[in-house]
Structures are given as C-alpha cells and as structure tokens.
C-alpha cells in the first residue's frame, strides 16, 4: 500500500513538459477494461465479506483475466505507437513519446505487481483461506487494485487533456 502511495507520487511528478502526440485509440478500450476489473474486484471483496465463496472465486478470476487483458491492450497501444513512428528511444524519438512510454510502463509495472497480488489472493481463496473472518489480504488487494485503476483513469484523462 505504501509502495502504491509513493508510486502515485512518482507518476504524478513526471507530469513535466511535453509536446504533441496522438494517443492510440485502444487506450480508451483499456480504460473501460480496467474500470470493469475494479468492479469485479469490488464484487469479489463483497462476496468474501458475505462468505459467498463461489462468487468470490469467479470474481477474482474475472479480475485476473481483465487485468491481463488490460496489459495486452497496453501492449497493442505501444505497437500502435511504434507504427506511427513514435519510439521510446533512439533517433527520431522525442520526449513526449518517451513520456507516454514511461507513464504507461511504470503503471504497467505496478499493474503486474497488482496482478501477482490478485493471483495470490485467488490461490488462497481456492484453499478457502479468504472469508469474512480473514479479510485483511483481500482488503489490501482491493484497495491496491482500485488505486491502480484510479491511477490509470487519472493518467488517461491527464494524457487526453495534455496531448
């Protein structure tokens, strides 16, 4: 959680100066995906609270899948950028493009850590270790996941406004 806190800071401070670039359209789809995953995560959390273990497992699985879908989508976003000759580095790259890569990259990195966290919770839910009396883990996980979703939303809106 604290790592999340500070990373919010990292990402936020990097709002430096950038120039024009076209956002890949797939980012919008990804945004929808990550919002959905937040919903399913919340549902999983609620299910755990009510000891609804079946729903809990499905919802966690859905969250996992959506999270991976988001990452894949981001990957396509990068591919799209490359096709439009916007590179991370090397000749012809410029900071506005590089910034996009860094912001999505750093976020993606955190998302991977989030996914690992969800995976751990999912595995322990298979062993019936997540229930209303053992909420700490899923609670932290939910908070972290919402945070990542919110962070992306913020980044996306930020990029939209400033591109």
């Amino acid at each position, binding site marked *: 959680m*604290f*790592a999340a*806190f*500070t*990373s919010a*800071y*990292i*990402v936020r*401070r*990097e709002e*430096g*100066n950038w*120039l024009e670039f076209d956002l890949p359209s797939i980012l919008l789809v990804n945004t929808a995906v990550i919002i959905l995953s937040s919903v399913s995560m919340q549902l999983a959390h609620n299910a755990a609270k009510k000891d609804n273990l079946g729903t809990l497992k499905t919802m966690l699985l859905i969250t996992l899948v959506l999270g991976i879908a988001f990452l894949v989508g981001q990957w396509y976003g990068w591919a799209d950028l490359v096709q439009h000759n916007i590179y*991370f*580095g*090397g*000749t*012809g*790259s*410029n*900071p*506005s493009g*590089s*910034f996009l890569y*860094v912001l999505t990259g*750093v976020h993606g990195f955190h998302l991977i850590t989030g996914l690992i966290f969800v995976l751990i919770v999912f595995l322990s839910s298979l062993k019936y270790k997540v229930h209303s009396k053992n909420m700490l883990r899923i609670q932290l996980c939910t908070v972290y996941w919402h945070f990542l979703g919110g962070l992306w939303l913020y980044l996306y809106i930020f990029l939209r406004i400033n591109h």
Partner: protein
Amino acid sequence: MSSTDISINEEVHHAHEEHDHHHEQNFIEKYIFSQDHKTIAKQFLFTGIAWAFIGGFLSILFRLQLGWPEATFTFLEPILGGWIENGKLNPEFYLALVTMHGTIMVFFVLTAGLSGTFSNFLIPLQLGARDMASGFMNMLSFWIFFLSSIVLFSSLFISTGPAAGGWTVYPPLSALPEAIQGSGDGMTMWLIAMALFIVSQLLGGVNYITTIINLRTKGMSMTKMPLTIWAFFLTAILGLLAFPVLLSASLLLIFDRSFGTSFFLSDIYIAGQALTNTGGSPILFQHLFWFLGHPEVYIVIMPAMGLVSEVIATNSRKPIFGYRAMIGSLIGISVLSFVVWAHHMFVTGMNPFLGSVFMFLTLIIAVPSAVKVFNWIATLWRGNIRFTAAMMFAIGFVSLFISGGLTGIILGNSSLDIQLHDTYFVVAHFHLVMGAAAFFGMFCGVYHWFPKMFGRMMDEKLGAVHFWLTFIAVYLVFMPMHYLGIAGFPRRYYNWTGFETFNIFTDMNTFISISAILGFSAQFIFLFNFIYSIYRGRRASANPWHSNTLEWTTPALPGHGNWPGEIPAVYRWPYDYSKPGAAEDYIPQTVPFSQTASSNLPHERELE
C-alpha cells in the same frame, strides 16, 4: 480508532509474553541479520561513521589540490595509483572526488547514518514500544542500504572512476559517457546505488511513521512525545514524499543514458558532432532533483534539531522553551520545504516573476527557523547548564545553524544570488548550516545516548577536546570561504591559478586546507574515544544524565524487548526539569501526578 488501539494493546501484550520465554538468539540473529531496533541502529551508526571517514578523506584529497595547486603529489601514488599523473592529480578525478564527497556526506552519512541511527534507536525507546512496527522491514532497510553502500564504494575502484558530475548529477554531463569518464560505468553505479538507497529509505520511513502512530505506550499522546520523535516523524514523512521524485528523476536519467531517450537532452554537440537527441530539457531534471533536494536538506537537519532540543533541555535543567512552537515550526519547515526548490535554480533563466515568488517563499522559511533558534537560546537562558560533551555539541549546533542560516537569507534573494550562485559562498553556506550543523547534531546524539547504546560512558575530557578542535576548525575552514565566494571564486574548479584575479587567494586557500586537515585529524580523537569506550568506558548507570524520557527507565543496557517487565505508562510531558516544589530537579515521564503533589500546577491537581 478505538478498535485499532485495542488490537494493538493486545499485540503488545502478546509480544511481551513471547518475550519472557524467548529463545536465546544465535550470533547471526543477534548481530548480523538482527531485527532488534537497537542493533540495527548500531549497524547504521557504524556504517555511517565508516562512510564519514571515507567522505572526509576524499575531501582532504581535493583540499590538497586546492591548497597547494603547484605541488606534486607523488606521495599519494600508493593510494590513488593511476589518478596521479606525473605527480599531478587527474582533473577528472578531482571532479569525481568532489562528487563522491557530496554524495557520501549528504546521503550516506547525514541521511542514513543520522536518521538511521537515531530514529531506529530512539523511536521505540522513547515511545515505550518493544520494537519497531516491522522488525523485518527494518532489517531489510539496513541491508539494502548496505548493498547500496557496497555498490557506491566499489565504484571508487573502477578504471573509469566514480561518478563525476557533482552530487546533483545534472544532465547533460551525467547523461553522456562521451562527456566525461565518470559518466560511464561510475555514473551507472551511482544510479544503482541511489535507487537501492531510496528503497532503503522508504522501508525505513514507513516503519518510523507506523511505529510512531501505532505503538505509543499508554498515556503517550502525540503532544507528550519528546521533540526528537516529532523531528523523526516529520523527517520520515518528508522522505516518503521526496525520495520517490528522485527515483523518478533517476529512472528518466537511466532511460536517457541507456535507452536513447531524450528527456533531458537536446541539441548537443560533442567534439563537433551533433547528437540526435532533441526536445529534452535539462532544466526538467533540475526541477525534479531539487524537488527532492531541498526537502532532503531538511531531512538531514531536522533529526539533528530534535536531538539538540532534547539535549539542551536536559542539560540546561529547564523545560524546553515553547514546546508547541517547536512542533509548529518543525511542521512549518516541513511544509515550506516543498515549495522553495527553485531557489537553487535562480540562474537557469526562469521567469523573474517566478523567481520572486520562490524568493518570497524561501525567505519565509527563515521564520520557523528563527523560532527554533530563539527557543533554544531561551531554553539555555539562565539554565543550570552542564557542559557535557553532548551539550557543547548541541550549543555548537545552534551557533553553526545561525551562521549558516544568515547566509541562506542572502542567497535566497534572487538578485544577490546571480552573483553568488556556484561560488564558494554557497559552499560556505551549506557546509555551515547543513554539513557541520548536522554533524554536530550527530555527535551530540552519540555522546548523549552512548550510555544507552553500549552501557558505558564516553570520556568527557576527550569529548571536550574533540569539540573545541572541531568547532574551531569548522569556522576556520568555512568562514574564509564566504570571502572567496563574494569575490566570485567558483566552486568545483580543479585549478584556478590560470585566473589572474584569483591568485591573490592562494594563501587563503592554503589556510583553509590546513584547517581542514586539522579538523579531519581531530575526528580521530572521537574515533578513539568511541571505540575505546565501547570496551573500556566507565560503566553507565541506567539514567546518567538524570533525564525524563522513557529510554532512561530501561536497564543500563536494555535487552531484547527493551523493558524486562511491563512497558511503563506515561503521565506527563518530557520536560519537567527544575519544577518548583519538586524533590529533585527532574521528574521522569513515568511519575504520576499523584506522587508529586508538592510541585503540581493548579491545572495538574485534577490529574492527581
């Protein structure tokens, strides 16, 4: 809130029971991968002292060059090897020395060595906790710091030399290995070391904050905490907010260096060749760096302020003057420290209007700083001062903080800074206010808490000699630098004999170098005293300074878990010294008001 409190009390109780039938720790658990906050504190202290001597030694090397620009240094060849060419110090190595000196002192000694030692040692002891919130994270914090130390230390020995772009590592110099040797592997290692360092700081900081919020003993409200704890608390918060920014700056720099991005690079020619990078801004790096960098200087000084407040009150036998004002000014400094960073960038071509905004904000910082100085002096005023070694260093701290703070106000004026920027005036300013003052705070802490750390006393006479030599040397070194700076003498120049104007300062530079060597030598007195006293010092009693705070209610050498029995409860603030009507001139925090009827103030009667 109440529910968390209950669970914590349970946990503490639980830990206590565990403690009673605790198995004997083996050597590794006890001394190496220890999770005990006292051991970790000592580990930080030893590493910090080692770094301080290395950093100090590097500064002596470059002072030799500055003091005797015409001399040959063949005698240094055994140590420096190839960096001495024909008896001359290699100019690029000179820059590397300056860089490493700054990095080591600011980050490894005065951040990790100071906060790491005293936050770890004092937070649980002064709050009445068995240990830190997470002993494991705490251990991790030290070992990651140690790893970072190893990386930085090894960079001293690689063939292209360590980083050489200054401790602020401004690009483009630091980004382009073509520009200077030190920006090759040395810089890479610098960045790795710094990334590890930041992780260590974050782990430590999270721990300090959670411990202070959650593990205070019964009765220890936030406003009954000693000022040391307040200082550590705010320092940790500053670190948590500021260090990630440095991490992001480093990350972008790494991308620029290794992945061909141009965040900080644009339109650069090296040896007539244009680089492909376009669109970057080196100023952006400065913004990121100083957004960390300015809070960082307060991360260095605030723990020292806390230690000094405590030592001054104890040894003046008087309550600290303006306890709440002290907390308020610490908070004020913390908040302001985030909005003044651009005063390091007045000459980067920023909009003059922006410059005056930052000037205004910068000068406001002088207010809380002055409040603190005033309160320290008022505490000393008509106290029964005991000149212990710790107390002398505390008073020395106040003196240095005033001298250095005054020049800060001069530098804070953007128009004056145009003349003074990047001259020795700046060097003098920050060495007095940050370097020397924080070192004095650290010495003050070591002399004062040594008995609790090692169960023995340090030698007071040697302490006094150490103090006077250091104090005099510091002023002899840094006072003349103000004059050099006003004359426009630039910092970070390897050789100035080519400039006719500066040749008149040859003697002054020699004088400064001699004083520096004197000051450095005096530190060996401390080293001797420190090591000797660990083994042979006079045995300490549990409360040798007759102090009020909780750590002195532990046994002379507190064991694992700190208090053998139950954790004491707290009834009063920590500064009841020389209270009229009291039997003794101090009343520890653990004494309830019911036992001190003769000295209670009217509003305390209800608490009896």
